[in-house]
C-alpha cells in the first residue's frame, strides 16, 4: 500500500434537508429538521406505531428522466442523483475508465422493488412481474448503475454493513486508491426504505422514537429524553482521488481523507458493545492510518442516533480514546436534523465533516432539551467555531451486525 494522499474533489447529496449537498449543508447550519408526519394511507391502514420519518426533500424521480428512473429502485435513484451532482462538482474528471472505480454501499437494498413485485405477483400473477425486478432490487444495483453511467471500469464494489455501510465504503475507497486500483473513485452510499415493513420492524425492536405528536423534534442525540432514532432516506457521494491526479487536472480540493478504520464487535447482532472497544479500535485504526494522535482531533461527527443505549456507548468508546479531552472537542450529532439514513448516513455525514473543515465550523445538533450526563459531548444547538488552525476530524458509523467504521479527514 502506498502513502498517496487522498483528497475529496466533489460532493453530492440528496437528503431529508436538501436536494443537493450545499442545500443540505445550509439547512443543517440553519438548524432545520427534515422529519415530518408521513402522509400515506398505509400509515393508518396498518395502524403503525410510528407515523413519521425524515423523507428526502426532493424525490429523485422528479430529477431524473423517466426512462432512467423507472429502471432504478428509489435507492439507486438517490445514488445517481447524488453522484451526478458530485461528478459535476468535481469538474467531470477526465479519467481513464480503467482507472475509475466505484465503492458504494447500501444497508438493505431495493426493498420497495422487492415488495412491490411481491404484491404484483400475489394480485396479478407471475406474468406481471417485470423483468427488471431482480436487477433493480439487488444490493449492488447502485454500484452497477454508477459504473454504467460514469464509465467506471476499474471496479464497482458494494459493501453492506447496515448503518456503518457508507463510512465503510469510503474507507474501502481509501484503501483501493492507496493500493493503486484506481486514480478516482465514486464513493458513498444510499438507502430508501421508509416502508411499513421497516417501520414495523424497527418499532417492534423499540428502536424508533415514538414522538408522533412532535416529529420535527423527535431525533434528539445526546438529550436526556431521547427515545429512539428517526428513519431517514437519501444518498451521499464523494469523489475521491489521489492528490497527484487531482492536482494534475487542477481540481478544487475540499479536504484530504487521511485515514479509515473498520472493526467488528462480535458482541450482539443489534446492540453495540457497551464497553465500546470495537468502536474505539476503529477510531484508533483511522488515526493510525492518518499518522495522527488523538490530541490532533478537532471535530467529531458522531454516529449519535438518539437511541437511549447507543449514544452513551459512543461516549464510552470515544472517552477511551480521547480521555477527558473528549468533552472539549466540538461534536456534531447531525441525525438530529437529517434522521438516520442507514446505509446512506455515513456518506452524508462525511460530506458534512468535509464542509465543517472547509468552513471551520461544527454544525449544530438541534433538539437538545437537556444534555444527558451519560453523554457529555460538547454538542451545541448553534454552529461551533473550529478556529483557523489545521483541522482533523473523524466521522463515526456503527451498524447492526456489530460493524464499526470511522473515516478521518484533514483540512487543506
Amino acid at each position, binding site marked *: 500500500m502506498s502513502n498517496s494522499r487522498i483528497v475529496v474533489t466533489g460532493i453530492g447529496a440528496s437528503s431529508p434537508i436538501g436536494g443537493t449537498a450545499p442545500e443540505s449543508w445550509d439547512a443543517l447550519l440553519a438548524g432545520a429538521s427534515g422529519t415530518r408526519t408521513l402522509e400515506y394511507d398505509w400509515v393508518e391502514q396498518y395502524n403503525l406505531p410510528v407515523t413519521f420519518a425524515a423523507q428526502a426533500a426532493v424525490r429523485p424521480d422528479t430529477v431524473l428522466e423517466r426512462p432512467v428512473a*423507472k429502471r432504478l429502485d428509489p435507492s439507486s435513484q438517490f445514488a445517481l442523483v447524488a453522484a451526478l451532482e458530485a461528478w459535476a462538482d468535481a469538474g467531470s474528471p477526465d479519467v481513464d475508465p480503467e482507472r475509475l472505480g466505484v465503492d458504494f454501499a447500501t444497508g438493505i437494498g431495493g426493498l420497495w422493488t422487492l415488495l412491490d413485485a411481491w404484491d404484483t405477483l400475489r394480485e396479478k400473477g407471475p*406474468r*406481471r412481474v*417485470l423483468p427488471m425486478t431482480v436487477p433493480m432490487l439487488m444490493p449492488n444495483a447502485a454500484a452497477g448503475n454508477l459504473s454504467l453511467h460514469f464509465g467506471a471500469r476499474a471496479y464497482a464494489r458494494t459493501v453492506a454493513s447496515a448503518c456503518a455501510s457508507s463510512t465503510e465504503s469510503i474507507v474501502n475507497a481509501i484503501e483501493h486508491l492507496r493500493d493503486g486500483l484506481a486514480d478516482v473513485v465514486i464513493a458513498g452510499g444510499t438507502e430508501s426504505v421508509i416502508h411499513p415493513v421497516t417501520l414495523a420492524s424497527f418499532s417492534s425492536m423499540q428502536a424508533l422514537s415514538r414522538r408522533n405528536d412532535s416529529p420535527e423534534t423527535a431525533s434528539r442525540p445526546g438529550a436526556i429524553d431521547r427515545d429512539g432514532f428517526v428513519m431517514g432516506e437519501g444518498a451521499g457521494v464523494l469523489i475521491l482521488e489521489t492528490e497527484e491526479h487531482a492536482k494534475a487536472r487542477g481540481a478544487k480540493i475540499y479536504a484530504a481523507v487521511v485515514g479509515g478504520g473498520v472493526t467488528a464487535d462480535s458482541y450482539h447482532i443489534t446492540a453495540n458493545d457497551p464497553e465500546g472497544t470495537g468502536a474505539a479500535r476503529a477510531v484508533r485504526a483511522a488515526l493510525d492510518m492518518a499518522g495522527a494522535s488523538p490530541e490532533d482531533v478537532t471535530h467529531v461527527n458522531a454516529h449519535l442516533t438518539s437511541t437511549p443505549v447507543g449514544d452513551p456507548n459512543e461516549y464510552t468508546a470515544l472517552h477511551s480514546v480521547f480521555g477527558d479531552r473528549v468533552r472539549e472537542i466540538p461534536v456534531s450529532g447531525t441525525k438530529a436534523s437529517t434522521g438516520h439514513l442507514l446505509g446512506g448516513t455515513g456518506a452524508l455525514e462525511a460530506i458534512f465533516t468535509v464542509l465543517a473543515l472547509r468552513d471551520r465550523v461544527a454544525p449544530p445538533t438541534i433538539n437538545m432539551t437537556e444534555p444527558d450526563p451519560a453523554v457529555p459531548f460538547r454538542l451545541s444547538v448553534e454552529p461551533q467555531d473550529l478556529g483557523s488552525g489545521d483541522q482533523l476530524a473523524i466521522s463515526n458509523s456503527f451498524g447492526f451486525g456489530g460493524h464499526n467504521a470511522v473515516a478521518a479527514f484533514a483540512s487543506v
Partner: protein
Amino acid sequence: MAFSNDEVLAGLAELITDETGISADEVALEKSFTDDLDIDSISMMTIVVNAEEKFGVTIPDEEVKNLKTVGDAVTFITSNQA
C-alpha cells in the same frame, strides 16, 4: 371491448415512450423494435408485459421473437383480443 389498430398503435407508442423515452412520433408500423428503435430484450419484455395488461391479451414468450416490427405487434394484439 375491442381496440382498433390505431388505438393499439397509440397505446403501444405510449408504453414504448414510457419505457425508453423514444418520442411517440417515432413509433410507426414499419419500425423494427431492435434495428430502428434500439429496444433491448429487457425493455421489449417490459413492453410486452405492460401491453398484455393494457390490451387484455396474452402474448406467449415464443411469439415475442416473431414481433419484429411495431406493425407485427399491432397485428398480433388486434387479432388476439378476447
